[in-house]
């Protein structure tokens, strides 16, 4: 038997053997460290992205790091079966699918005034009978400002309030827009956009493109939007000085009856960009009406059904998939990081900031 203790390596071979062992361990650890981003501090990670969101808005323990202010809603989706020709997802078969959702305004401050931004958002989770889910986070503008995670990060950095004024440095903001001409369509929209008095009167766009797959495996790039039935005339004008009029308006409207949106799905033509949320598709693209979203209840976000939902846009049922839009993976990664932070704070995990009661409103 060659494997007896007497065959142990002679001393002059041992140095080489130890070096080989040490080298193997260090190389493996090095590859691991590289994969984890420790050797490339310049890499944009979910951690850095969410830290930047906190730098811009402050850290509010227990809250989402973006779209922090919002309310829970629930209801259902009545599919008319029209989208079934393009997607095998169960949600598009004729029938009803339960929905949990959330309306919010962008930004990381859960106490921001509703009038502080012209954008509102609608996030939904459809739970299919087969247990698969479709989660989507939509915004009330037709295009996103930028098309890549790097540009989004640069935008956050450029719009970070300065310590001296509490407002972004106008020179940095101007330099960012000058360096990012893709923000043009969004800025054109923002010029005329006004903060709406109601969540219920807004259209909400998916912004990112997705890919539908039908029962035969045929693929079709799509974007979708929710188009409201309600009009501004149905509502009450916000009271002067009320910073939280969106939640009260929604409560009043739902007390009158359910609020409805049509789910409109736009089909891309071959060649339409699916990898750039800053570019709208031409207006003449075919749009199908897939059914009606009906919301009938609202609850506060600290106790409602949406509280523990991460509206990750890549949680998708069979029949819907992400496109090559680079923002999708970044949203998914950053939302997961934000979700871990706020659930850790709920759990009083060591090292996380303590959850504080809501501060008094400033006059």
């Amino acid at each position, binding site marked *: *038997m060659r494997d007896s203790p007497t065959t142990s390596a002679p001393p002059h071979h041992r140095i080489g053997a130890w070096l080989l*062992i040490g080298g193997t361990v260090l190389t493996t650890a090095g590859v691991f460290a590289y994969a984890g981003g420790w050797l490339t501090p310049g890499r944009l*990670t*979910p951690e850095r992205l969410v830290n930047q969101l906190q730098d811009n808005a402050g850290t509010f323990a227990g809250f989402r790091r973006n779209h922090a202010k919002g309310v829970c809603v629930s209801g259902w989706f009545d599919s008319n079966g029209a989208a079934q020709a393009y997607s095998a997802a169960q949600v598009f078969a004729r029938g009803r699918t339960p929905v949990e959702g959330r309306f919010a305004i962008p930004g990381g401050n859960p106490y921001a005034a509703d009038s502080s931004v012209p954008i509102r958002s609608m996030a939904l989770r459809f739970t299919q009978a087969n247990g698969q*889910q479709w989660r989507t986070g939509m915004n009330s503008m037709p295009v996103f400002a930028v098309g890549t995670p790097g540009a989004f990060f640069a935008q956050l950095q450029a719009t970070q309030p300065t310590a001296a004024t509490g407002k972004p440095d106008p020179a940095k903001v101007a330099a960012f827009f000058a360096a990012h001409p893709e923000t043009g369509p969004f800025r054109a929209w923002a010029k005329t956009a006004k903060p709406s008095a109601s969540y219920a009167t807004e259209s909400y766009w998916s912004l990112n493109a997705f890919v539908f797959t039908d029962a035969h495996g045929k693929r079709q790039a799509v974007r979708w939007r929710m188009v409201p039935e309600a009009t501004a005339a149905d509502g009450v004008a916000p009271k002067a000085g009320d910073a939280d009029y969106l939640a009260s308006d929604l409560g009043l409207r739902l007390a009158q009856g359910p609020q409805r949106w049509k789910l409109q799905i736009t089909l891309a033509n071959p060649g339409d960009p699916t990898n750039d949320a800053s570019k709208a598709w031409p207006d003449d693209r075919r749009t199908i009406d897939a059914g009606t979203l009906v919301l009938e209840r609202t609850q506060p976000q600290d106790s409602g059904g949406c509280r523990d939902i991460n509206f990750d846009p890549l949680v998708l049922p069979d029949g819907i998939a992400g496109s090559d839009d680079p923002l999708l993976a970044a949203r998914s990664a950053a939302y997961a990081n934000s979700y871990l932070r706020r659930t850790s704070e*709920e759990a009083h*995990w060591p090292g996380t900031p303590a959850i504080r009661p809501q501060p008094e409103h400033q006059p």
Partner: protein
Amino acid sequence: MRSDPKMFVPVARVLHWLLAAMILTMLLVGIGMVASVSARHDWLVGFHKPLGIAILLLVVVRMVVRWRNPPPALPADLPVLQKLAAFASHWLLYLLMLALPLVGWAMLSAGGYPIMLGTSLRLPPIFPVGAVGFAVLRHLHTWLALLLFVTFLAHMAAALYHGLIRRDGVLSSMTWRRDARGTADD
């Protein structure tokens, strides 16, 4: 084939090296996906879940094989402390290989996520939905993974120490026994 008492049975050797490759891949995928906002993130996450369940199943098979075919004894002259380390680290490895996929599965259950192993295959939840449960399991998943990586490195270093320094047959009991002279002797 008559089994050599100084060797692991062939099926144990195949499972060992397969699991070693899968676990190292899994650790790199896991640490890489949480540190990426690129398109990699999505497909790494999609790969991580079915690979984790595959590891869980193979570890169970590996344990049955080990139970039915006890491994070769360690060299009689191995110092007691090293024997103890070998014993403890193997228990730790098996514990972590079982715990990590289960904690990952429980963590996704607690987060209310559908546990998809592809576009249509879905596992049932194994833990009640809740923010606190999710947070604790999610942190546990990371810390156990780091512990598994350290244990993996120690296991690899110890195997090389047995093969290169002691040359006592412990490493070759898990390989195909091509020795330094280049002859296969099983």
